[in-house]
């Protein structure tokens, strides 16, 4: 896979983030437009393009959800842009319950503690589906791996929403 190859890292969800960061910096020191400020127009363009790609690759591998999405997209499952509905009734029911729980957090007596509990629940789900994604991916069941990533997208989105609500409530 292109992005893993770029940083000379093995294709795996488990990633050495320190090594990734170190290699990202080393590569940017070479390709970044600041190192080509005196170059010809073609070389400047080349440098902007290369630096953009390196930034994109780093951003993609750095964050777990992006990394998982990228890994399945390389096997033909573009979960980020597809119109796909999850049909797993149990999962959807669980999501609805979590959403209801989120709405009720506002009226909790200790808001911060309530949010902390909520985040802990979300984290459990993240771990569950991340593990599922990893094992399906390793076995080459990309369809099932993609399904786990779709669910992870739901869970991450819920976390973002929770954080936004918390921000508003606590007057950030």
């Amino acid at each position, binding site marked *: 896979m292109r992005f893993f190859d770029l940083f000379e890292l093995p294709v795996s969800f488990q990633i050495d983030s320190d090594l990734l960061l170190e290699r990202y910096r*080393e590569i940017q020191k*070479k390709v970044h437009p600041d190192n080509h*400020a005196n170059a010809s127009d073609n070389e400047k363009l080349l440098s902007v393009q290369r*630096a*953009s790609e390196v*930034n994109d690759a780093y951003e993609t591998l750095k964050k777990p959800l992006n990394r998982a999405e990228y890994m399945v997209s390389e096997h033909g499952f573009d979960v980020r842009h597809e119109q796909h509905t999850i049909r797993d009734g149990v999962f959807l029911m669980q999501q609805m319950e979590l959403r209801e729980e989120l709405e009720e957090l506002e009226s909790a007596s200790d808001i911060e503690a309530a949010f902390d509990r909520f985040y802990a629940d979300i984290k459990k789900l993240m771990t569950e589906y991340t593990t599922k994604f990893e094992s399906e991916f390793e076995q080459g069941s990309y369809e099932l791996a993609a399904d786990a990533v779709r669910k992870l997208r739901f869970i991450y989105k819920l976390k973002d929403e929770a954080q936004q609500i918390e921000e508003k409530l606590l007057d950030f």
Partner: protein
Amino acid sequence: MALLQIAEPGQSANPHEHKLAIGIDLGTTNSLVASVRSGEAKVLPDSQGRFSLPSVVHYGADRSVTVGFDAKTNAEHDPENTIVSVKRFLGRGLADIQSTYGKLPYIFVEKENKLSLLTSQGEKNPIEVSAEILYVLKQQAESTLGGDLVGAVITVPAHFDDAQRQGTKDAAQLAGINVLRLINEPTAAAVAYGLDSGQEGIVAIYDLGGGTFDISILRLNKGVFEVLSTGGDTALGGDDFDSKIVESILAKAGIDTELSAKSLRKLADLGCKIKEQLSDIDSVDYEIEIESETTPQKISGSFSKQDFENSIADLVKSTLRSCRRALKDADVEKDQVLEVVMVGGSTRVPFVREQVKAFFDKEPLTSIDPDQVVAIGASIQADLLAGNKPDSDMLLLDVTPLSLGLETMGGLVEKVIPRNTTIPVARAQEFTTYKDGQTMMAIHVLQGERELVDDCRSLARFVLKDIPPLTAGIAVIRVTFNIDADGLLSVTALEKSTGVESSIQVKPSYGLEQFEIADMIKSSMTNAKEDIQARMLREQQVDAIRMMEALDAAMTESPELLLDDDQLAIEQAIGKLKLATKGTDGQAIKHAIKFLDDTSQPFAARRMENSIKVALTGHSVDKV
């Protein structure tokens, strides 16, 4: 390989010769220029030894244009023609300005999304006014440094949007300055401090200037300055502190009628004076004569430190809210912040320092003059970009401060690049037609964090034509956003099945078109002395020399990447360019540059890929 023997007067054929480059802090109230000389970055004083130039431009009825201290003395008696704090108007429309700044002593004219100020010398665009300031700084630098500049790094508030950045770059072009890079003010400050201390870790830069507030969170590591997040307010600064004082004085005196331009200017100056005095003493007595409904009126009283702190408390609180958000965006806790750096004149206000200290629970750093630190940092980066430090390990990785998106159905904004994404960046999004046989699609580019189009800033609109008439939902239109290292956006749209393309360098509303800039250069007062033809020729010659030097260095450095055919072709192209450079035909030089550029392209590409390999294998353990 001795390829070059061209030495123009004032230029050297020796590529290792120190090139003159400057850093400019184009501030709301004051502007500065700095340069690295004998390894030391210093602000360059004017002929009278003053370090900062007031960002004030006066257009006299006698066609004279004065900038700086002389212009400032005119502010009170000729307020309509004395443009103060023009930076606040860059890339802004009239409605914006009026809602943000209230009463101002200027006559604004707005036509077709272009804003100007009506002066005794006609309409002046904020970009032209800014160019006057830049021109003076450039002259000052050239006379101090004694030579032609290869270029400048100009700083902008981190929170500036695309229109404001583009406006700044256009102003530099008008002033005849080659912009090496636009960099963010807090990032520049971090460079000035970082190189000084050599520290590693998380740093927060709190930058409160005359008209803008920025907060940036950076991670410093082995010469890499990585901006993790940035935030702020482009319309909050020391000027607003002054206005708060004025509001409070007028309220006390019970005045709520329309005031004359002169009175407004006088009051603004009074506000500023009171603010400055309150840094040292606890209370200031004032007396001022103003015209209210054409009747002169005297108001007097005393203004205490407590009054001042009460009136600015909300403003300062709002800066701290931005700090909290920036920390969160960076995914950093307060106690991970190693240092807090204070930048900008308004951080001299003791109340601001106290509040920042309390927020971060840390004594903020003020060891470099907060007025000079940005210009100093910019000059260090300019020195690097000019190629004076080939062995430097320093690299700035900055981010885009605001999310960029496109309008979709129902007046909603679909984000394409979220805020705090490291630049340069390219991102694409695909859309489809919603009507059968639709052959055109309007593309509306927006900047901001909100979900509704009306709440975001409109950057540009363009139309992709000649889409093949297909059933709704079949045509695939790919819109690509590119943000370059200056933080400037360009957008391209492509229909995938036919390859029909439409692209624009986003020229935002309230910006200038390229031909307008060219016209302004021709007609501008400041440049009338220079022969435009001569200037263009000179620029082409400098470009040619720079390019041949760079190529020479590259060929010497990596001869192994030079294939036999390349070498011959490149040498021939260099020969052509050398010949053209000796002539006086600017156009011929331009063509020869382009030819050499295209000829050496494969070599440049090989070098780029090779440099990545070298960067990794040098550090990789599994590779021996």
